């Protein structure tokens, strides 16, 4: 009993002693931790304005408490179904299109024998990943312009002698444009992680299968695909954790008054109600943002737990 106690105290003092001996390491942490507290933890405290009626004059701590009023307003407004629906639609559509395509693309690239050709395919398809969102949307509006754009010109030259419909100012095409321009930009880049998994395949496996008479297609199905499955399942799980967090930039840039039915996602709605308008409802916008953040956090925790279990702690952050 006493032995245990002394052992415990000795261990405790030794931790503090060790900490003191490592004082320089804590000195390194001063700037990063100060920054973290100010720019990440202070806003977490500031999120209480979602439960108050924020008045700039009274400040965060002085404004009146209103409880869940702002959340109720949001849940009862027709924007709730619209923004949540649009957010989930865009991310699910993108996930369902991107996931199988990037695996197929990686398997195809892996089939290419000629090293230079493979490198060329990779270099070209990775490139659009670095184009900024503003430029991407700028390219879309230039190319898809029905009168002066490439789309309009090709249409008139090869299909009919009239101007095509303006797909940029219509609501339904927005969803497809959003997703497929994303695929155009990122499909190549998304194969990197799969290509790395495929490069780990033992070439002897392929040789043995070849001697046994397996065609290349059979080797894709029985060797390459099984190798990709663990990586693929983890990527799928991780990606489904961000289903409620569609980035602000692209949807906002592509948005106009006509396609808002489909392009108004939670992120753009928070910006517009909170900062983008003339009368800013800061508390209401903070409540909508908080609602989204809490759901994102929960989804990420679930996803992280699941992928951690599947991979035996390899792909989990905690």
């Amino acid at each position, binding site marked *: 009993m006493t032995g245990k106690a002394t052992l415990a105290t000795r261990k405790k003092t030794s931790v*503090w002693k060790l900490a003191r001996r*490592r004082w320089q*390491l804590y*000195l*390194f*942490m001063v700037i990063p*931790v100060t920054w*973290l507290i100010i*720019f*990440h933890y*202070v*806003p*977490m405290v*500031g999120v209480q*304005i979602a439960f108050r009626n924020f008045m700039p004059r009274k400040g*965060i701590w002085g404004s009146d408490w209103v409880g869940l009023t702002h959340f109720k307003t949001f849940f009862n407004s027709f924007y709730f179904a619209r923004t949540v629906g649009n957010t989930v639609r865009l991310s699910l559509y993108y996930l369902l299109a991107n996931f199988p395509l990037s695996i197929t*693309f990686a398997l*195809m690239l892996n089939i*290419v024998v000629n090293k230079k050709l493979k490198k*060329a*395919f990779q*270099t070209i398809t*990775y490139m*659009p990943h*670095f184009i*900024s*969102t*503003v*430029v991407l*949307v*700028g390219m879309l*509006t*230039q190319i898809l312009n029905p009168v*002066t754009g*490439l789309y*309009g*010109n090709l249409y008139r*030259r090869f299909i009919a002698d009239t101007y095509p419909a303006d797909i940029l100012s219509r609501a339904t095409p927005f969803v497809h444009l959003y997703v497929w321009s994303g695929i155009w930009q990122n*499909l*190549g880049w998304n194969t990197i*992680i799969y290509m*790395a998994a495929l490069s780990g395949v033992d070439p002897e496996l392929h040789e043995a299968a*070849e*001697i*046994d*008479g397996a*065609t*290349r*297609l059979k080797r894709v199905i029985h060797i390459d695909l099984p190798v990709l499955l663990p990586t693929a399942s983890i990527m799928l799980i991780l990606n489904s954790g961000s289903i409620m967090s569609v980035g602000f930039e692209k949807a906002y*840039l592509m948005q106009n008054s006509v396609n808002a039915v489909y392009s108004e996602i939670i*992120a753009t709605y*928070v910006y517009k109600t*909170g*900062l983008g308008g003339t009368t800013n409802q*800061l508390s209401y*916008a903070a409540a909508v943002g908080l609602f989204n953040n809490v759901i*994102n956090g929960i989804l990420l925790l679930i996803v992280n737990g699941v992928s951690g279990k599947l991979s035996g702690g*390899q792909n989990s*952050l*905690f």
Partner: protein
Amino acid sequence: MQSQKAEKRKIKNPTEDKILYFVVYTILFLFTLCVLYPIIFIISASFSDGQEVQLGHVLLLPVKPTLAGYRAVFSHKNVLIGFRNTFFYTFAGTAINVAVTLLCAYPLSRRDMPFKGFFMFLFVFTMFFGGGLIPTYLLVNSLHMVNTVWALLIPGAMSVYNMIITRTFFMNSVPVELLEASQIDGCSDARYFISVLLPLSQAVISVISLYYAVGHWNSYFSALIYIRRSELQPLQLILRNILLATRVSLNEFEDPDLLEGKIGLEYLLKYALIVVSSAPIIALYPFVQKFFMKGVMLGSVKG
């Protein structure tokens, strides 16, 4: 006999394989073409005559090549301001980012640092939950950073994700024996960082510098929220105003000759802008490609 059999089977395969190769190469070729064509078109259009672009005569190669679009870009006052600002934000921002990331990743990579787990939790927690846009804006506003360059440099001074990449590199790619040996020689923790760890970490430093630099170059959202003064706006914000406007106001040019009888100049301007604003990154791209890929791989391994 055995080998003969194998030979026979091997000979039997190629027809099926040939079909597969044909299909795969065709699809890859077509997709690559789909990626490449819009890029080539935009470059060609930017070098063509404005009227020809407007009439749709440019399909693949430039028609009646001119540099009018580029002359327009480089005499547009706001674009020049945007370039200057973006260069500043990219260099200053990346320098701050890399410094803070290294400062943070080093102690957290040390296995012998007490309370490391607690600090790590503080950082990782922010990847799961945050205050959100409005409270962050109010904070930056109350610090009087709105409409100053600091708003684009300090709130995003570090990305926790890049810090974890760096930490993983420190833990897995720098042998722990080096630390032990230098400690026996009486090397302090700070001295070890400067004299041993940093020289060995060029790979990860290049990876995160490039990640941060591309991030700054392409960043647009922070400026949209925090910067209203036009002389502080980065290129991407100015690009948005020009590219997504239906009509470009032509009185922003310093060179009045440009305006005379130039039909389609605004289209040229847009195409040339797309090229000019992406050129620095695309030009660097072949050199940085392998670093970026390394970064993706570093990020996927847990420390």
